């Protein structure tokens, strides 16, 4: 808290000193030409509805506020952001986006969910080319997440999260260990912390079913060990020998007692609370946790907050899930051109950079490589963006086929089963899940 306030003060001072520069910038961002917007306001008075959740997310709040003040001023287009509850967002998103009469124009979606609505999204390839958007500024993982298995760009990357290890520097120091480079290191650190008799859980995992978050780190284990969900014939392969080893490692944290027993039911938020409240020493989750840890009410946590790339597989790869929310335009929209104008502004590097430098709504969510490597943004976020960009270089995305939305719950339930039932046989559970996955794929005609 104090740290954040000091930082704010410092930045305010810096801003004051650079006032002339700031003014120049302020003019820049109010100039339609900066963003390639049509200065003649052809869409003046158009109202756009943005299908999105979670107005409390700092990035969204920041973008919405700036859009109201600046984008609307430049174009005369007003944009209202939806505020659907995240818990039912997947459902609301589908039902609105597939609705032939929906009133929404723009839509933000989680990559894994997008496949169900691809047919309702306006392809953006031509737009990207015409608007001169630098597609290579998004890393391969985000590019893949925005296009699915095709070359069609269904949405522009807007919100993306690499997985980072967040940890307590003091705890690791006390047991004389470096931050884990591999998943196997985590087990070793867990044993060391327990051997030292420290009153803290080595790691807070999340094996609960909530929004399928228990799959994120499992993917990293699978990919690191060298296997994917499917083989090249769309046969499930996660239950082969490598998959078994990866899954057993992933589940070992709770089975060996390194992660609290209650983590079998936790979601990502509940697990990160353990870290923030000082009850756990490590947590692997979205990068924006870093600032939450630094501003923890528990002083040991705030003072010893540290982060590093998520671990990899010993003797294997380091790969993790690059989780992306692309923003697309619905085919049903009557205001396609106005919506595209908004996308230009919203995903423009200048806007994106300003969002991560926002002092009112502090957040670090950037998706463009140019912003992730921006020195000022990195200084503002203690180098977090740079580390994230290193993680993203090895990030991958999940099988983006429509059927995957039906397969996700099967996989999430299998992981949950292994966590909940400590006696469950990993191979048997994975085999059953594979059978269920085949069932879905077969019904969809993949094996015809």
């Amino acid at each position, binding site marked *: 808290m104090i740290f954040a306030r000091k930082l704010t003060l410092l930045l305010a001072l810096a801003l004051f000193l650079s006032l002339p520069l700031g003014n120049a910038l302020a003019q820049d961002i109010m100039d339609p030409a900066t963003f390639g917007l049509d200065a003649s306001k052809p869409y003046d008075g158009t109202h756009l509805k943005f299908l999105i959740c979670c107005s*409390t997310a700092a990035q969204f709040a920041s973008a919405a506020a700036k859009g109201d003040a600046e984008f609307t001023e430049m174009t005369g287009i007003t944009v209202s952001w939806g*505020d659907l509850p995240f*818990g039912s967002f997947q459902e609301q998103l589908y*039902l609105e986006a597939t*609705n032939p*009469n929906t009133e929404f124009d723009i839509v933000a979606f989680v990559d894994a969910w997008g496949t169900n609505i691809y047919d309702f999204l306006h392809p953006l390839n031509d737009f990207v080319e015409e608007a001169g958007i630098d597609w290579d500024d998004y890393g391969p993982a985000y590019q893949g997440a925005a296009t699915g298995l095709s070359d069609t760009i269904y949405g522009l990357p807007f919100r993306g999260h690499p997985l980072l290890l967040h940890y307590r520097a003091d705890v690791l120091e006390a047991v004389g260990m470096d931050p884990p480079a591999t998943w196997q290191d985590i087990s070793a650190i867990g044993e060391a912390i327990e051997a030292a008799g420290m009153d803290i859980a080595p790691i807070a995992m999340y094996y609960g079913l909530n929004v399928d978050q228990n799959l994120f780190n499992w993917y990293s284990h699978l990919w690191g060990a060298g296997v994917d969900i499917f083989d090249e014939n769309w046969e499930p392969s996660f239950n082969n020998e490598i998959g078994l080893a990866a899954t057993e490692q992933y589940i070992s944290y709770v089975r060996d007692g390194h992660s609290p027993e209650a983590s079998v039911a936790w979601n990502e*938020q509940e697990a990160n609370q353990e870290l923030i409240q000082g009850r756990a020493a490590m947590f692997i989750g979205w990068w924006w946790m870093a600032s939450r840890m630094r501003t923890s009410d528990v002083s040991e946590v705030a003072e010893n907050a540290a982060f590093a790339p998520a671990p990899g597989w010993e003797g294997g790869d380091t790969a993790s899930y690059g989780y992306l929310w692309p923003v697309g335009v619905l085919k049903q929209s009557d205001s396609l051109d106005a919506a595209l104008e908004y996308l230009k502004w919203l995903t423009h590097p200048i806007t994106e950079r300003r969002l991560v430098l926002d002092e009112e709504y502090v957040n670090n969510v950037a998706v463009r490589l140019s912003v992730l490597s921006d020195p000022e943004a990195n200084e503002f976020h203690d180098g977090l963006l740079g580390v994230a960009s290193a993680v993203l270089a090895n990030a991958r995305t999940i099988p983006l086929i429509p059927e995957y939305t039906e397969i996700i719950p099967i996989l999430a339930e299998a992981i949950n089963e292994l966590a909940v039932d400590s006696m469950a046989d990993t191979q048997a559970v994975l085999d059953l899940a594979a059978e269920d996955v085949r069932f879905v794929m077969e019904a969809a005609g993949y094996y015809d």
Partner: protein
Amino acid sequence: MTAASASRIKPGFRQQSAKLLETAALLLIIAFIMLPILWLALTAIKPQEKAYTTDIIFTPTLDNFEIIFSDESVIINEGTDRERGEVGRKMVPNVFNSVVVSGATILIAIPLATLAAYAFSRYQFLGNGVLLIWILTTQFIPAIVVAIPFFTLFRTVEIFGSPLLGTRLGLIIVNMSIVLPYAIWMIKGFVDALPGEIEEAAYVDGCNDFQILFFISLPLIRPGVLVASVFAFIMSWNEFLFALIIGREMRTMQVALMTTSGARGIMWEQMAAAGMVVMVPIFFLAMFIRKNVVDGLTMGAVK
């Protein structure tokens, strides 16, 4: 102590211990019923940092109510080192939706139900017994079966230029399917209990069917109609599945409960405050129709 006096004391002791046991059982029942309600009420007025504890000593606050209704950030713990802003949950429109949907549902359903109930009670007509039973069985249709076709229908059916899906009107229409049958059965019970002599006398005096209905019978069953209205209001107020699938963005309070999650998962103190808004008005209504709830739920099958 003689044997005689001992035997005189013994039944007294047994009676007393039985009474004590009964009192204990009653207190246990009260605790069983009231604990969740009281705990929710307590959580609703807890300061944020106490909500995640089982502490019962704290300084009560109305912050949580301010947060759920506000449409901008609310500063809590002002002046302390825990001062922070909480984003308002903007639930005023949700309350409005709940009130309008439940209110309109009974405004439409109750008059229709009253007329139908009166006919079922007072007239013999072809198939009236079977019809009445059939109306009862419509309550056993799972709500999801009603929701799926109406969902697809309301996506395409437009009224006033916009599809019915995600409108209060759409929700009101679907709510009819649960409210009308109950209301008919309930009001029919009240009409049945009304002696027919007055109506007969009026008929002899030359009143026609409708004059009897509107000027003689209706005023007499007014209390029953009121009870049925309250019952129907509670049913549509507490309805969740239709509100979720058909109401969509036009969220009622039941669905708005889902919006209380944030960075800490579900913000329990906010959920509790929203829960109070959902629950407290219904307490008063439920007390008002206390004696009729059983008849309503069972459609008079248990008497």
